[in-house]
């Protein structure tokens, strides 16, 4: 079932890379933070192809330079080094995306690796406690919400390339995780991809599921109000030039008048746009320009990227290696396409030209 849209060997390399990234982190076995996924990305990215240097790359490099300069005014610069490393990895994934023409094998590899999590989550659903997870089944992702979001994005990735059979590995995450955000992301993705009344019906059914899940969950809307409190606290700390790389984690408690940081210490405002604005201020304009550039391109990656951005509004996909890779690859692919004159179609046109099925 492998597709050979890429040069010889590259497709298999992407398949293996995707699989390894999805299974790299085993809670309490390979450490107690999602470090192993980043290590896999660090080791693999130098060997993956990169696209030709274009305007989007320069914008990205300008942002990285700004982020590096921001260490000069960050309160704890050593924390910023960690953030810079993650930003470089995101940049590497983006550069890889600009070189990818057919991501089928990458999505397939990630989905097969994700299947391991789904098998574990299934066992967790029946009470198995062999791998650490918080409350609901989460496979290798510890947090069921993250597990659901990764499942949602990979399901949409498979739909975008019309590779349907591996959905059996990804779609169960939507039910097992009970994540409203994941269900909403899939609903949005389906509407973007199919643009039909059938898709609207499926989206409606998913919306109904979200409300059902919400009404049966013990937390109900608590997580929403906690997020809003964090967002308001984060807005209180915004500055023109940002507080420097890695500064959210360090300086947030100083503005957290609505959150008790004695009982919980958010590492992230659960809104990527706010976090970037908080840490980099005006420097975020470069990222905004890249996003804007990607929106001018047509292509099946929009089915993935727009729900990914939706998730970014409520969570932290750039902090989860699998989600970060998928999002940045899609962004890179769309930017590369929008910058190539021969592919410069207005958004919404030429969709079929870029469907890989």
């Amino acid at each position: 079932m492998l597709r050979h849209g890429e040069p010889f060997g590259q497709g298999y390399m992407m398949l293996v890379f995707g699989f390894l990234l999805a299974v790299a982190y085993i809670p309490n076995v390979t450490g107690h933070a999602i470090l192993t996924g980043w290590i896999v990305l660090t080791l693999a990215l130098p060997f993956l192809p990169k696209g030709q240097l274009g305007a989007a790359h320069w914008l990205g490099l300008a942002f990285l330079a700004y982020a590096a300069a921001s260490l000069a005014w960050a309160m704890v610069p050593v924390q910023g080094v960690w953030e810079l490393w993650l930003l470089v990895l995101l940049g590497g994934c983006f550069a890889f995306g600009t070189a990818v023409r057919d991501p089928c094998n990458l999505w397939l590899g990630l989905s097969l690796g994700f299947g391991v999590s789904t098998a574990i989550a299934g066992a967790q659903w029946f009470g198995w406690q062999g791998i650490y997870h918080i409350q609901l089944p989460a496979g290798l992702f510890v947090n069921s919400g993250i597990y659901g979001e990764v499942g949602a994005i990979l399901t949409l990735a498979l739909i975008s390339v019309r590779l349907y059979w591996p959905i059996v590995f990804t779609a169960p995450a939507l039910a097992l995780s009970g994540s409203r955000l994941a269900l909403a992301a899939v609903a949005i993705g389906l509407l973007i991809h199919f643009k039909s009344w059938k898709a609207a019906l499926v989206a409606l059914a998913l919306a109904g599921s979200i409300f059902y899940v919400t009404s049966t969950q013990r937390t109900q809307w608590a997580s929403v109000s906690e997020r809003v409190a964090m967002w308001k606290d984060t807005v209180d700390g915004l500055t023109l030039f940002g507080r420097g790389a890695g500064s959210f984690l360090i300086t947030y408690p100083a503005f957290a008048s609505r959150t008790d940081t004695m009982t919980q210490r958010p590492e992230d405002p659960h809104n990527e746009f706010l976090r970037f604005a908080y840490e980099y201020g005006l420097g975020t304009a470069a990222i905004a320009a890249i996003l804007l550039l990607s929106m001018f391109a047509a292509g099946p990656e929009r089915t993935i990227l727009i729900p990914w951005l939706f998730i970014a509004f409520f969570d932290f996909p750039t902090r989860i290696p699998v989600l970060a890779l998928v999002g940045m690859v899609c962004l890179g692919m769309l930017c590369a396409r929008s910058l190539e004159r021969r592919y410069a179609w207005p958004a919404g046109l030429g969709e079929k030209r870029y469907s890989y099925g």
Partner: protein
Amino acid sequence: MLGQRAWEKRDIAMARAAASIFPFNRYIRTQPGYISVLTTGDVEEIAAALRGDPFSADLTFGLIRAYMARGDHFVLGGLIHNFIRLVPNSPQAKGLLNGTFSSTR
């Protein structure tokens, strides 16, 4: 993994080694301070951890407790002021404000 093992064993020396190898992660960097809060109450260790995470309410509280246990009230005023400013609505801050808090609790 060194940091994880240090935390499980409450081994400050191992935690210090992990923090010196990889200071870029807040958990690893501040772990010697947290272990100290739970075990020896070493003021210097907690203060060093607090320099790597200056607005940490729990580390500030740990330092307050360590100073109280040592009977050193010279710097307590400033620390308690910082702590109450960070988490004004926490039960610990209220305890400090109304005088019902003691270092032995």
